[in-house]
């Protein structure tokens, strides 16, 4: 394979050999000398006062080293902060103690921690910690939580309201007035149910404190080690330069490993208090209540349209369930990452929207794959179908009619964003072609076969990726920057090590980043090592989330590599005794223009850079460069997903028959990896449409609290996906990429729900809330007079 073709090639992943041989080291694989094991005692109540904690029996248990409660941490461990303080929203940030002191606010709230010589003893002793609770009334539904008489979680947040965020653009009132006169207004309530991320690796922390130097080292399952180090410093009071955070192999995150959790602070406290290295690994049952959940919106939405299908305005209100405390990014997810994408890929000039963030006695809610954008895409893509249905228009036609046109980019949306580039029609046409849309519509005309109804659903999405310009991050209250760092270091033998501030955990950037550097410097991929996830090795970085790793981190690497090449060119010109302008660079060789035989390879140049026997004037020895890339805008990938289902009217069973995804993520570095990202996202998104739901009872007990109860999707539930692509490079990104990590979850959910609703059209059923279980579908079909789906959530 020619080196010059490496960008864009489906090369095998460089991280795989260690992963397929069992040689990879995940956090729970670490064993340090003298290490003790922690088990956290968690509240079985959703809301209760703690009246007494007796740890004596636990302390006496053989093998127990220490037991700590919330009282022991007071004054030593600061409250767990939230890091997204959205402006103009009257945001309340009630304190979140690392271990509850006098009150627990959700099932799973940490109350005490037991340390023992082995994990079994720690667990045994944890069951001996006696906690006396005085149960309080609990509230789990966000709409009810803001009502009068609801149990109150925090004195600082009256009526359980964490914030009220408003968005307005254009003149929604006028748009709706016009639609009321001669057009159509469609109203719908949508429930975007709560989901549980279920990364296959649960969270795990190993902390070691050296009292002699005051050094804390923490290995843990994080998507953003530098943010974790910063927050660890804030919470423990240990200075930032005395903390090293390492993300070893991390087994998936999907957003759930972004937050800085109370548990991390507790483990660090324990390591410092006992002088022993401490390991804590969440078990899966614990993961279901102690690791963040996602989504959980209730939305009343209305859309205004002309009778020809022209969309005029969007107006609505969402109650976003935030759980018991504000997790790290929680306030920004249902607002900035959600509300700003409400009008999707359409020219809807008028929008008015309000989001109320609500505390409830449930597990905290934060970013889960897509984070706010799947919820927004679901709303607009369902609404477009409802408008088409009401006006008896073809759903694809309504989309075409309202798409932002290619000549309108950069496009200023009513929400205030500037979409960088897009060309929506070709992606739609390609998807319709791949799914054989026209033929399927004809088949559909023939009516159901054996009681099975065919449905075809579309989702034409746009998402906001590549988070993002730091100035915008600051303007919207994110308590950090969103630029990214990169260092490309050549070694004397002509090999390279690349350092990135992003922290990939399955997305394959050890491969794609090497492809970028290979493309820039003409080095074989095998000669490039990519280092990530260690604050001790990498100057700074903001981590992996928001489909930013390749977009922002990759761009930083490309710029750093260019700087290496620029310096190498100076040295090469000196070696060849020509002017720099007389050189060309191709496939790792600097050659003199017109005399291709006079050349120096990048390896030869690198060696001279390190020997420094004869460098041009003003050029320092060594060959490395760093870049700190702050994007000028977000990127806006888009595409069309199409789903074909068959619904059995007798049983309510949905079969997903075919699925096509046409994504435009700009330039593609490794098509195989992009396909993998798309496939994984589709499965998570389809599972929201059809299978998954976190369900609490009225007392705040999680009824879906294990993998036996929560419907994590399996291989047999899916057909073979067909992927296609169009390529519209981002005009402002140095390598033209847009990001692809979340497209699948963003696009697939409404595509599948639209397909099922399309299948049920003849029954007069227009909407059922997710997940579209056989019971809900059967009930909707057989209960046409009351088309509201049965409320599962208490």
């Amino acid at each position, binding site marked *: 394979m020619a080196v010059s073709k490496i960008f864009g090639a489906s090369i*095998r*992943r460089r*991280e*795989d*050999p260690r*992963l*397929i*041989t*069992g*040689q*990879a*080291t*995940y956090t*729970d*694989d670490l*064993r340090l000398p003298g290490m003790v094991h922690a088990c956290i005692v968690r509240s079985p109540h959703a809301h209760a006062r703690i009246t007494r904690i007796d740890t004596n029996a636990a302390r006496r248990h053989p093998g127990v080293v220490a037991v700590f409660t919330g009282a022991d941490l007071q004054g030593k461990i600061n409250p767990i902060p939230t890091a997204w303080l959205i402006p103009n929203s009257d945001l309340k940030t009630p304190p979140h103690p690392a271990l509850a002191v006098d009150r627990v606010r959700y099932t799973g709230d940490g109350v005490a921690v037991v340390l023992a010589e082995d*994990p*079994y003893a720690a667990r045994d002793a944890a069951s001996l910690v006696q906690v006396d609770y005085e149960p309080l009334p609990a509230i789990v539904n966000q709409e009810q939580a803001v009502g009068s008489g609801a149990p109150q979680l925090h004195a600082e947040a009256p009526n359980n309201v964490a914030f009220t965020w408003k968005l307005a653009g254009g003149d929604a009132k006028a748009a709706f007035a016009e639609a009321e006169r001669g057009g159509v207004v469609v109203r719908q309530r949508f429930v975007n149910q709560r989901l549980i*991320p*279920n*990364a*296959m*690796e*649960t969270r795990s922390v190993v902390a070691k404190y050296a009292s002699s130097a005051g050094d804390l080292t923490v290995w843990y399952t994080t998507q953003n080690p530098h943010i974790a180090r910063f927050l660890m410093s804030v919470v423990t009071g240990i200075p930032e330069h005395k903390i090293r955070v390492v993300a070893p*192999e*991390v*087994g*998936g995150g*999907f957003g759930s490993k972004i937050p800085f959790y109370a548990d991390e602070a507790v483990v660090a406290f324990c390591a410092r208090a006992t002088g022993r290295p401490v390991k804590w690994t969440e*078990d*899966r*049952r614990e993961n279901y209540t102690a690791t963040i959940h996602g989504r959980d919106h209730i939305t009343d939405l209305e859309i205004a349209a002309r009778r020809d299908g022209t969309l005029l305005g969007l107006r609505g209100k969402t109650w976003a369930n935030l759980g018991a405390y504000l997790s790290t990014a929680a306030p920004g997810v249902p607002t900035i990452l959600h509300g700003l994408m409400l009008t999707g890929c359409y020219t809807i000039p008028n929008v008015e929207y309000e989001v109320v963030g609500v505390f409830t006695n449930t597990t905290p809610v934060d970013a889960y794959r897509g984070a706010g954008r799947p919820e927004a895409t679901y709303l607009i893509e369902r609404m477009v179908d409802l408008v088409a249905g009401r006006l008896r228009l073809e759903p694809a036609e309504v989309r075409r009619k309202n798409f932002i046109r290619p000549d309108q980019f950069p496009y200023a949306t009513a929400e205030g964003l500037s979409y960088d580039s897009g060309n929506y029609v070709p992606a739609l046409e390609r998807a319709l072609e791949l799914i054989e849309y026209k033929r399927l519509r004809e088949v559909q005309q023939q009516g159901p076969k054996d009681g099975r109804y065919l449905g075809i659903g579309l989702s034409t999405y746009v998402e906001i990726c590549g988070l993002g310009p730091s100035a915008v991050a600051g303007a919207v209250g994110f308590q950090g920057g969103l630029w990214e760092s990169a260092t490309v270091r050549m070694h004397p033998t002509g090999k390279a090590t690349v350092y990135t501030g992003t922290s990939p*955990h*399955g*997305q*394959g950037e050890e491969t794609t980043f090497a492809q970028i550097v290979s493309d820039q410097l003409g080095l074989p991929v095998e000669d490039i090592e990519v280092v990530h996830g260690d604050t001790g090795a990498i100057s700074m970085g903001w981590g992996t989330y928001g489909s930013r790793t390749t977009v922002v981190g990759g761009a930083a690497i490309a710029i750093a590599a260019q700087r290496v090449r620029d310096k190498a060119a100076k040295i090469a010109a000196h070696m060849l005794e020509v002017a720099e302008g007389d050189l060309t660079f191709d496939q790792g060789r600097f050659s003199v223009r017109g005399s291709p035989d006079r050349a120096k390879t990048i390896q030869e140049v690198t060696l001279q850079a390190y020997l420094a026997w004869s460098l041009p004037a003003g050029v320092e020895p060594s060959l490395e460069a760093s870049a700190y890339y702050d994007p000028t805008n977000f990127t806006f990938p888009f595409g069309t997903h199409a789903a074909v289902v068959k619904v059995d009217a007798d049983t309510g069973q949905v079969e997903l028959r075919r699925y096509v995804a046409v994504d435009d993520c700009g330039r593609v570095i490794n098509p*195989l*990896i992009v*396909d*993998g990202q*798309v*496939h*994984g*996202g*589709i*499965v*998570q998104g389809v599972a929201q449409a059809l299978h998954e739901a976190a369900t609490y009872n009225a007392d705040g007990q999680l009824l879906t609290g*294990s*993998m*036996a109860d929560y419907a*994590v999707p*399996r*291989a*047999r539930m*899916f057909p*073979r*996906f067909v992927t296609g692509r169009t390529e519209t490079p981002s005009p402002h990104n140095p390598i033209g990429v847009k990001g692809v990590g979340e497209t*699948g979850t963003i696009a697939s959910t409404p595509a599948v729900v639209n397909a099922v609703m399309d299948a049920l059209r003849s029954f007069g059923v227009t909407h059922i809330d997710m997940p579209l279980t056989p019971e809900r579908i059967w009930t909707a079909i057989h209960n046409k007079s009351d088309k509201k789906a049965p409320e599962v959530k208490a």
Partner: protein
Amino acid sequence: MKRAISVTVNGTKYSNEVEPRLLLVHYIRDTLGLTGTHVGCDTSNCGACTIMMNGRAVKACTLLAVQADGAQLQTVEGLATNGDLHPIQQGFWEEHGLQCGFCTPGMMMAALELLRRHPDPSETQIREGLEGNLCRCTGYQHIVNSIQNAAGKLRGTPVR
């Protein structure tokens, strides 16, 4: 209270005294230090801990170490021979059958069992054969491709 057990893992014989309640997966990971086998749940649903015991795939979180007394075990560390990757490992690498890699050891051991039963499996047989193994990253399609690839290699007729 502890009981003596002897097991052969990847061709090496081990003898240890273990608590009767010790799970086999913890014995493999913590006592023997073979951390390639993972724990993803506590309800036998995820299959991350799948290993071969006496030639059959088992979930090591669902067995006690004492139940493996006298058994022959194979874990992910024992898949490659003399540094040569097993065709299943090659298949997963070539077809991008893994992302975060956490489910992968168990997934590959389940694939070993699947291909023992169905040397030339249909796509449906593969998808149904993976019923006991969860992956949250890949969406399964590349895992299916990986197993088809491995099946071809094992039959001596590479698929692609």
